[in-house]
């Protein structure tokens, strides 16, 4: 992420690097484990739960931002918010993603999104909003842990933070209030879209991973992948 003056996402880079270094959820106990199947299911269920939670959170937050952000046909051009992880992907590319890449993209996306959400939380005006956001962040952290668990079970390494992220930043000119709200709008939109995409991603993974009986064999094959 490059730190552009006035880009609020850049200002959160410090926080993001801190989060990257948080210890990942320890790998599933390999002895007698039923394979990654149940944890993929659990991750899928978590994305559904989060999507449901986000619906009410986003509604409340957009109302707090006020019009035009809370209008249903608000359709602004996508300007700024360059560093937000985008869920959109070419159809054929998405189909042909291998499991490792699919999981990695999900993990990286939610790591960034969680970071930005925490930034949002710090700026939120009302206590109730802060509470809802904090609750959501906790759930999102749970999703991250769940994805990490699946990756560990399949023998994939967790992604490392990108080189070049600076621990210090130079505060740029003040971000206009409207532009800040636009950034918030796109964050919530991208989060919602990622949750829909993840449901489809984990559906695909579910179908590809064999039922528990054959999980051990597959697990060994995956390790040699």
């Amino acid at each position: 992420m490059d730190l552009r003056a006035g880009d609020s996402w850049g200002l959160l880079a410090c926080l993001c690097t801190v989060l990257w270094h948080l210890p990942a959820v320890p790998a599933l106990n390999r002895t007698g484990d039923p394979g990654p199947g149940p944890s993929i299911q659990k991750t899928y269920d978590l994305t559904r739960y989060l999507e449901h939670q986000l619906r009410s959170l986003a509604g409340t937050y957009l109302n707090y931002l006020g019009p035009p952000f809370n209008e249903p046909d608000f359709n602004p051009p996508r300007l700024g918010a360059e560093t937000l992880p985008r869920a959109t992907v070419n159809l054929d590319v998405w189909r042909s993603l291998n499991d490792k890449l699919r999981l990695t993209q999900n993990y990286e996306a939610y790591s960034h999104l969680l970071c930005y959400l925490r930034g949002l939380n710090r700026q939120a005006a009302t206590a109730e909003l802060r509470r809802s956001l904090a609750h959501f962040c906790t759930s999102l952290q749970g999703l991250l842990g769940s994805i990490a668990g699946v990756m560990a079970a399949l023998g994939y390494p967790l992604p490392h933070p990108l080189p070049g992220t600076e621990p210090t930043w130079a505060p740029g000119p003040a971000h206009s209030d409207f532009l800040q709200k636009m950034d918030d709008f796109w964050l919530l939109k991208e989060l919602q879209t990622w949750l829909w995409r993840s449901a489809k991603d984990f559906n695909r993974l579910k179908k590809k991973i064999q039922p528990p009986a054959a999980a051990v064999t597959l697990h060994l094959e995956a390790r040699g992948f």
Partner: protein
Amino acid sequence: MAAPVPWACCAVLAAAAAVVYAQRHSPQETPHVQYERLGSDVTLPCGTANWDAAVTWRVNGTDLASDLLNGSQLVLRGLELGHSGLYACFHRDSWHLRHQILLHVGLPPREPVLSCRSNTYPKGFYCSWHLPTPTYIPNTFNVTVLHGSKVMVCEKDPALKNRCHIRYMHLFSTIKYKVSISVSNALGHNATAITFDEFTIVKPDPPENVVARPVPSNPRRLEVTWQTPSTWPDPESFPLKFFLRYRPLILDQWQHVELSDGTAHTITDAYAGKEYIIQVAAKDNEIGTWSDWSVAAHATPWTEEPRHLTTEAQAPETTTSTTSSLAPPPTTKICDSGELGSGGRPSAPHFFSVPVALALAAAAATASSLLI
């Protein structure tokens, strides 16, 4: 001499044909096409004729009364659809055709109704449109699809003229799609547009081949099977969930069951002996809306056939008094005792064993008494 007469005839015929041809293919041979608004008034001039020229007007070959004339011009007031037709004005004396007007009475288009739907997610979506009220004259439609600032191609449907198809290039987009349509005809112009997110327009086609069958020896069960709609391209990665509704024909209230996977379900609370109507709907597991209801399947649960005339009258509605409706006569029971000994039929509850035991005991007692 016979020969000159036929030749003369031919010559006359040829001349007549030439005259007719000249008349029909006069300078005004192609009628002037004119569109006028329903309910309006119109004055049709007889081509370039003077106002005071003596002309006769005809519509579709029928003479028109002269009271409609204003000089050589035809005046039509309060146009109705029936006024549409071919108007021709002739020189009154020579019957020379001066001018022809093909009049179409119609209306300018009202705002079109446009809707888009994806029944082939993630392949693409289609948009269809129609006018809320007819215009009675030809209309042309022009559809444009924008994804953010990118223009997308909407391919015309080969069969339906009010539909076109768009293919998704990218999935999981946060940018909305905007579909605009403009309609125009000779009398006016109108347009509308709709904006939507990729996920909101997902609506599968209804499930196919819904079949309901009775389950043998189960008077309260019906087995329902169906197939995912053939238009849904990838049920593996984009699984569907289903909603089943059923009711006996004699009742109005539906029972509902939601099923997260599988394409079969057994109804276990059907009213015995009543014909049921069953329908299924489908939805993507996470996004979009439910499909329309499928074509209805009909079935009646299994009922036992009456075996003997002496058997008690069947009372299929009274499922509480099982003994009377399900217990066959004792003579049959002895023949089936072997089956019961080895585990019995699934529909044979415990009370059968009492008459069987008694019968067996009676038979054994009789046999032993005979032997002694």
